[in-house]
Each structure stands twice: as C-alpha cells, then as structure tokens.
C-alpha cells in the first residue's frame, strides 16, 4: 500500500469518530460489531505504518517475537465480544473511550507483531481468534433472549452471522499462514541446509530491530552471505 493510499484510508476511517457517524454505527449491533469495530482496529493497523522508526524499534525491544502484541490484540478483541462489556461501552463514556483506544492500539500491535512473529505463533493466535469469533457468532445466533440490553433480538442474530463469517475469514488467514510457512520450509530445504540458519538470523535479528530493517537490505545481505557459505560437512 502506498503512503498516499494509506493516509487516504486513515482519513476515511477517522470519519467513524465523527459523533453522528459513531452514533449511527453504534445504533445497530451488526454494523457496530461486524463493521465498525474491525474498522477501528484496521485504522490502528494503518496508523502503525505512520509511526516513526524509534517508536517501532522501542516497541520491538519489549515485545519478544510479537507475543505481547498478539496477546494484547487477542485479549482486546475477546473482551469487547463479552455482551456486558459491549453494553457498558454504550452506556458509560469511560468504557466507550477504553473500547476505542484499546481497539486502535490492538490494530497497531497486530500490524507491528505481524512481521516479527514466527508463522507458527501467528497461526496459533489467529486460529484461536477464529475459533472464538465463530463460537461467539453461534452463541449470538442461538441465544433465545437478548444478550445485550442495548440492542434488539433480531440484530443479535444478524451479528452472530457476521461474527461467524469473520471467524471463517480469520481462519482462512490462519490457514494461509500454515501454507506459507510450509512453503518457506520447503524452499529452505531445497536451497541448502544453512538456509534454515539464515531464517533464524532474520527472525532473531528482527526482535531487536524495527520491522523495516528486519526485512531490509542488511538482513537480506546477511542471509545471502550465510547461504553462499559452503555447507558444513
């Protein structure tokens, strides 16, 4: 995504915070949970691309393999799916502020962790999130009474379908991670035994470097140097 496109998307998504737009989105449970809240997390992801290098590297230093970021994002997304928490965010200003700020931060955290986390960890976290979204979706669809006092029963059913769909999407992304990981392993096995070591260096290097430098020329040249070296006997 180009910088201009990213900034344009940020401006567009910021429109959700205009009081009239926010009230309209919050008025319908499905729009709120299935469209509005994911958009806030997406906004966080886009904002992460605008953060200066020193912020990202400081974050990376305290976030081993992206575990803290992924845990934070999973916790935030899970929390706002709890009916009482969602109701509280609609009834009290403090909870509303907490909801939007934590969702925004979870987007930042996810984007930051995405390039640093090993595929296996990403797959584990995304798999869990997919399972949780699908479970919540089915519960919302099958509940006989209103789970959120701020919304009508028919909206709850529609929201359940939307959350289940999100579960499938996130599950597909998790599966994509598995396939991508397997392909990388296969490609590594065909190049040279030391290629595995080069991957390890890139990951371990990226723990203490901002994402761009981890995938940048230095890391790549380091990998090439190691790959070019004669295999150990």
């Amino acid at each position: 995504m180009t910088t201009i496109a990213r900034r344009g998307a940020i401006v567009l998504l910021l429109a959700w915070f205009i009081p009239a737009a926010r009230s309209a989105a919050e008025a319908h449970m499905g729009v709120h949970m299935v469209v509005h809240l994911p958009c806030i997390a997406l906004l966080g992801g886009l904002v992460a691309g605008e953060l200066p290098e020193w912020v990202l590297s400081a974050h990376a230093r305290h976030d081993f393999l992206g575990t803290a970021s992924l845990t934070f994002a999973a916790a935030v997304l899970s929390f706002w799916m709890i009916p009482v928490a969602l109701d509280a965010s609609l009834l009290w200003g403090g909870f509303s502020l907490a909801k939007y700020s934590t969702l925004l931060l979870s987007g930042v955290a996810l984007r930051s962790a995405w390039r640093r986390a090993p595929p296996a960890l990403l797959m584990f976290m995304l798999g869990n999130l997919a399972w949780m979204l699908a479970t919540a979706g089915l519960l919302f669809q099958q509940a006989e009474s209103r789970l959120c006092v701020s919304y009508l029963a028919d909206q709850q059913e529609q929201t359940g379908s939307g959350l289940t769909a999100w579960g499938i999407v996130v599950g597909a992304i998790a599966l994509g991670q598995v396939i991508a990981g397997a392909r990388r392993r296969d490609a590594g096995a065909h190049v040279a035994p030391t290629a595995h070591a080069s991957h390890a260096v890139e990951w371990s290097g990226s723990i203490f470097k901002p994402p761009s430098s981890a995938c940048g020329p230095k890391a790549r040249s380091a990998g090439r140097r190691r790959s070019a070296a004669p295999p150990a006997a």
Partner: protein
Amino acid sequence: MLCALCLATFIATSAHMTRGFQRWTFEAVRRHDASRLAIIAPPTALETASGQRMLAFPGLASGRAPVQVVDFVYTRCETVCSVLGIEFHQMQEQIRRSRSNVRLLSISVDPVRDGAAELARYGRRHRADAAHWTLARPESVAASTSLHDALGVIVIPDGFGGFVHNGALHVFDGQHRLRAIFDYSQWQEALNHAERLSSAGAP
C-alpha cells in the same frame, strides 16, 4: 513479562465485569448486584393517573416505606405491557386477599406521551385499585432518565414506534433497595418474595 501483564489485566477486568466469570450479560450482572443490595432507587417525582404529584423512593428520612413491586410500562404497548397489566391485576387481587402491605407501582417509560388520562385508561383496562396499585409517570424526561440510570433499566426503541426494555418485575424493600428482579412469567415468585420481605420487616 509484557505478555503476562496483558493476560493478567484481561483476566482481572473480565472477572470483574462478569462477576467472577459467572454472569456475561448486563441483565445478569444487574440481577446479581440487586441480590447484593447494591442498587438503590433515587427519589423520583411522579405524576399519578389521578393527576396527583407523588415522590417515589423518598429516602430514609421519611421513614420505612412499604415493600413495592415495580414494573415499567407504556400504555400504547399491546404486547408485553398488556401481559404485565394482567399480572399486576392478579397480584393486586392476591394482595387484597392476603391483606399484606405490599404496594404495586407501574411507572411509564414514555413520560412524554403517557399523560394522566392515558394512565387512567390503562388502569381502567386492568381494573387497577389505587389502594394497592399506583400508575404514574416521571414528571420529566430527566427524572425518568435518572431513575433508569440508577436502576440499570435500558429502554430502546423497538423500530415500530414502541419500546423494548430489560427487566420486568422489580422488588424494592422499605429502604428503596432493589432486592430482586423477576421475569414476566414469575409474578407469583415476585409477590411471594415481596410478601416475605414485608412480613419480615426487610432489614
């Protein structure tokens, strides 16, 4: 470390919100809080169906009040509120027979459209006896909102010009504390609970 902190914060906040991972909805939490005497009704100025002004839940300074079963209705409602009216009539007859000191109070959630005339018509339809059952509306929208906020009664438009709200039968003790909330179908349990509180003097 940061990861553990995230997890700990998530678990602690969720545990608090769900009252120990036991209650996942706002209504379940509200009923739990009511059972722990954590919800107190604020003094609320009402206008009754006869056009008189009254102060509901006036506070302890005015002495111990009778135990009350309170519901929230609007007179244009032809479904749930109508059923509530029938149930309140049945409770009224039982109170009359048992000569208990329990009072019934129906409060309108639509103080703008429910005037004294509308409430009186609702009362006549359900044969309300003012000696046992008071029908009233908050004197202002602000008073209505304040009462709903204090009790956790959430009223939302139903999309057809009417309203939907949580909770059904609220039992208040003599100190205006919300002691229990019952579903529409549990009017007998609600009345039994209120009569037990009334006869025990509700500490």
